[in-house]
């Protein structure tokens, strides 16, 4: 039972303690349940900071390992194996950071079945943490699939009018991707006699060079993993579930979905595809870059035509995640580190946008862009914060979005793996288009003469709780934008190590 005291074990499973407490509370004690959930997630945040304090930034390897043999039947070699390195530390922190914020955002928005909501949310946090920390493929797969379940309920129970449709679609689409990954995981397990990633990485080069796993097979494995991750990201053209899920999900769900769940896809590419299949990665890089570029332009163009704010932001995620993918498969330090940072940035800025949209939705119960207008006049603080979030989303220098997008594009532009600067060049047009759709939304909602809703509603500006929710995000938006060095320092060594293994 010593493993229960490992820092990463504590970090991953601590929310379960909250679940346990909530399970034994009466569902009428709504406020108490909310507090328990919030405190749990805050302690988890504290634990994540504790983990950060023990993390050595300069060390590119896995750290704080909690490794115990779990299932040791011939050829299985499954470990209970949690560890963190530069590739995942920021995502872990992001998860721990966004969860209490999301929970706080539900304070008044969720009145129905509060108990169930909090349980599912904390379970979701466990799943997400596990995904980012697991270093054994079996374990990873369990966490990966498990996150679907609470998210499915979050969308399906507390979502909008078409929530059931969206929830089922979300479930089936993401599951559809992961089943192929399951096959690939099993195949790798059989070939290497282990599911433990570091061990696998030791064996695989030998298997590749000896031809035990032919390069065609390697490519198939790459594709199988990529299928799971690409749907999750979502990469164009597999994004069709995203607008539904986002539009129907409750605010907190959208925040977590955009903030963390999508990152599981990009993280998967980083941790598994690039590390496990180096040759295939290099071969596939131009193709992924092509899809990413299409996604960037397509997502931005489609965003612009949306009438619903949430949908607009949802499609913008397609575009933003396209940047992340482009950066990852640039396969140079700038691109990859930028992509990792951009994952965080997207979590912050899109998270903030969803939260803000949720706050106004709570008052007006509509997200249609055209019924607003002139909102800045009525709610100046809200408008200003929305402006900052929007600017962050469109990559204004000095805010976080720029640092990520710039390094990604820079990396992709000179990437040997992608091979030509056109993708980055065309993707840079996406930066213009981001301004087009974001400013369009900002203008139609906050500027101009007062619209229907603005006219007839007694709209209140943000209250203290809402400010508490949003200000931490703003702090990071500025921090990363102006002084990203601490973040890059966490990422860089691991990225260098990852890239050094590639045949470039």
């Amino acid at each position: 039972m010593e493993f229960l005291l490992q820092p990463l074990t504590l970090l991953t499973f601590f929310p379960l303690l909250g679940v346990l407490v909530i399970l034994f509370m009466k569902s009428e004690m709504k406020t108490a349940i909310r507090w328990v959930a919030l405190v749990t997630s805050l302690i988890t945040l504290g634990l994540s900071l504790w983990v950060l304090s023990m993390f050595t930034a300069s060390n590119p390897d896995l750290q704080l390992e909690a490794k115990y043999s779990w299932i040791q039947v011939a050829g299985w070699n499954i470990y209970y194996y949690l560890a963190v390195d530069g590739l995942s530390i920021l995502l872990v922190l992001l998860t721990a950071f966004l969860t209490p914020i999301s929970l706080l955002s539900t304070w008044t928005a969720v009145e129905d079945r509060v108990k169930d909501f909090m349980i599912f949310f904390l379970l979701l946090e466990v799943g997400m943490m596990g995904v980012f920390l697991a270093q054994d493929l079996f374990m990873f797969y369990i966490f990966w699939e498990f996150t679907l379940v609470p998210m499915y309920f979050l969308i399906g129970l507390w979502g909008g009018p078409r929530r059931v449709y969206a929830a089922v679609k979300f479930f089936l689409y993401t599951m559809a991707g992961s089943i192929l990954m399951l096959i690939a995981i099993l195949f790798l397990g059989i070939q290497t006699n282990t599911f433990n990633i570091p061990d696998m990485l030791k064996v695989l080069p030998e298997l590749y060079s000896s031809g035990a796993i032919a390069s065609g097979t390697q490519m198939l494995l790459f594709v199988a993993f990529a299928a799971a991750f690409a749907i999750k990201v979502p990469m164009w053209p597999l994004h069709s579930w995203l607008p539904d899920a986002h539009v129907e999900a409750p605010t907190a769900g959208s925040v977590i979905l955009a903030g963390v769940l999508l990152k599981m896809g990009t993280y998967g590419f980083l941790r598994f595809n690039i590390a496990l299949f180096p040759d295939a990665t290099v071969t596939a890089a131009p193709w992924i870059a092509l899809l990413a570029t299409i996604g960037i332009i397509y997502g931005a163009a489609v965003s612009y035509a949306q009438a619903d704010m949430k949908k607009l932001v949802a499609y913008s995620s397609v575009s933003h995640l396209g940047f992340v993918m482009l950066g990852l498969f640039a396969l140079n330090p700038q691109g990859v580190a930028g992509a990792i940072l951009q994952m965080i940035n997207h979590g912050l800025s899109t998270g903030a946008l969803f939260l803000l949209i949720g706050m106004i939705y709570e008052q007006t119960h509509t997200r249609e862009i055209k019924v607003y207008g002139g909102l800045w006049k009525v709610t100046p603080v809200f408008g200003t914060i929305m402006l900052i979030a929007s600017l962050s989303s469109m990559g204004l220098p000095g805010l976080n979005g720029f640092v990520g997008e710039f390094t990604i594009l820079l990396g992709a532009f000179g990437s040997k793996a992608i091979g030509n600067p056109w993708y980055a060049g065309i993707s840079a047009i996406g930066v213009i288009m981001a301004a087009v759709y974001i400013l369009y939304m900002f203008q139609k909602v906050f500027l101009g003469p007062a619209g229907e809703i603005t006219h007839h509603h007694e709209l209140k500006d943000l209250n203290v709780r809402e400010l508490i929710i949003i200000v931490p995000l703003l702090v990071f938006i500025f921090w990363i934008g102006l002084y990203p060095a601490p973040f890059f320092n966490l990422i860089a060594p691991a990225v260098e190590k990852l890239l050094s293994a590639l045949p470039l």
Partner: protein
Amino acid sequence: MHLSETVSSGFFFLAPWLVFAPLTGLLINAIFGKRFSERTIGTVASLASGAAFVVSVLLAYSVSLNHGEMVRWRLAEWIHIGSLSLDWTFRIDSLSATMMLVVSGVGTLIHIYAIGYMHEDVRFKHEEGRFARFFMFLNLFIAAMMILVSGDSYMMLFVGWEGVGLCSFLLIGFWYEMDTLARPSWANSNAAKKAFITNRVGDFGFLIAGFLMFWYLGSFQFDEVFKAAPAVAESAPWVIVAITLFMLIGVAGKSAQIPLYIWLPDAMAGPTPVSALIHAATMVTAGVYLVTRSASIYTLVPQAQYIVAMVGAGTALFAATIAVGQYDIKKVLAYSTISQLGFMVAAVGMGAYVAGMFHLITHAFFKALLFLSAGSVILGLERGHHAHAHHAAHDDHGKGKKKKDDHGHAEEEHGEVFDPGDMRNMGGLRKTMPVTFWLYIIGTLALAGIFPFAGFWSKDEILLDASLHFTSIYWQLAIAAFFTAFYMGRQIWMVFFGEARSDAAKHAQESPKVMTVPLMVLAALSVLGGALNLPFEGFHNLGHWLGHTLGEVEGLPLDLKVAGISTALALLAIVISWFLYGRNPLKTGQIDPLKKPLGFVFTGMENKWFVDEGYFALIINPFKKASAFLADVIDWRFWHDFVHDTVILGTYNWLSEIALNKYADQKGIDAFANWLGTATQWISENMRKIQNGFVRSYALSVMLGVVLILGYLIFK
């Protein structure tokens, strides 16, 4: 690499305060703005900007102490990853110090002016609460502009570059819920958006140039780029050409050159101090600064230089023609700004960096002066209009008619909305607004390039350079100069002479001291600014000063031929304008006297050569349509509905419902049995009955399995 970071003497350590000072002002106003009086807010903001000016002066002084040596002041690390290393490093040399002085100097004056201007503006628009916001934005702008001019790398420059774009957006859209006539409208916010997006198009070019620079020259840091460039220019000249041309896109966006100038006229939707500060004096000159800063690269590729110069000259001429056909006092100035920016870009394109910078400085003085005076005129009219409307409303009330005694609705009661910026509503203002009149005259003469005003010297230097090397450019610029004098003359006659063409003009009132005193300072600078770089032996001060950064160039002496031609052209233009507008002043409702003789040409000028419409037809509408098409048809109906619902889900349902459950399970096997049944009559007759019997069809299924397996075993 960072040897120069160590400072032995001077005030270089103050460099960060260029940015922090205005930001401090912003924060103070953000936090306490609600409790402060307008005067306090304005004072805080002006002090913040003034502090930046003081720092600039100290820095410039330090540079001169340092014999013009460049000094870098590293504040913090920014992005370090792989071979990319970007820092927050300030670069203080003669060029950046010059820009700092102009920005903070003119900026501070405009801050002070704005205290008076905005005081009235917010009242006319019944939004007193927005006073503080204006000054916060202005301070933010100064901060961003300081980053732009003092950054030590292209990327830090870019931060300021986009930052000023944001401020421009915020300030153009300051009255976001109305149009320039204070009617509820999307117009102002549209203009703001247009400015931002058009600038982003330029920024795209900048970014691409940056990427090329990084991958081929290895850095973003100015010195390293300049050091690496010559070698690359030898081995792969196209790289340098590409960098410079992509950078030109950025320049075209920020400095409103063809084809991206379209946002600047619309930007006049912002309050007049904004037009003066951002859209005349400082921000729009950033492009010129960029090219000057990149002189070492541009010099390597004459072809690119030539393109830059052609773009500048073309813009100068093109915009000047449009200015001739405008009626709005600020629009005329806006196109004039575009035109003058064209002069500067042409100058730096030709390699006449000192001339370009010189014109940049003088232009900042006189164009700020003109804009602010125009603002004064507009407010004067506004005052007159309101005084009159108020009076009329009282009269109505006295007659017992039930009308709202409300300023805001006064216009509506009069039916027609009064436009205080339309020159056709003005006339004869020299009597009611004498101070403004004289200030305006000074500005006009400076802009028209009349000896000995500042504009004369700077413009002449550009023309001289052009005449020496690029004849076609020279002629374009010369004609542009002619038009400049003409439309300015037209403006003077229309605004200040003749009879008042509206009640408002009749009752116009002069502006308060807080507005006119900064104008006087600017006017003085417009008169004396030429002294910065007189083309005489022993002078060329600016040239020597900038030479520390740009490399010493020999100052050209005054060429009397060039100066004479341009002065003659200017005077001729003013005379023509007097014939058209001054001799027979415009009457109320009269069409422009140029309209008849010029016909469709004038229509083109009036309508800005339909460029906006062209953009709409060629880019914006297609994009909107494409976007809607992608969203509705491709993404929603095709990807979302068709692929998912019809193809995937439909196939599921079809397979399960029809193909297997109904068809295969119940009918299919029976059908197969029927097919078997035709083998013999006997089987056939009995098999048909099977369709009714379910148990037997189940047994048949078993049988079928047996047959298939055995068949496989036997015939395999």
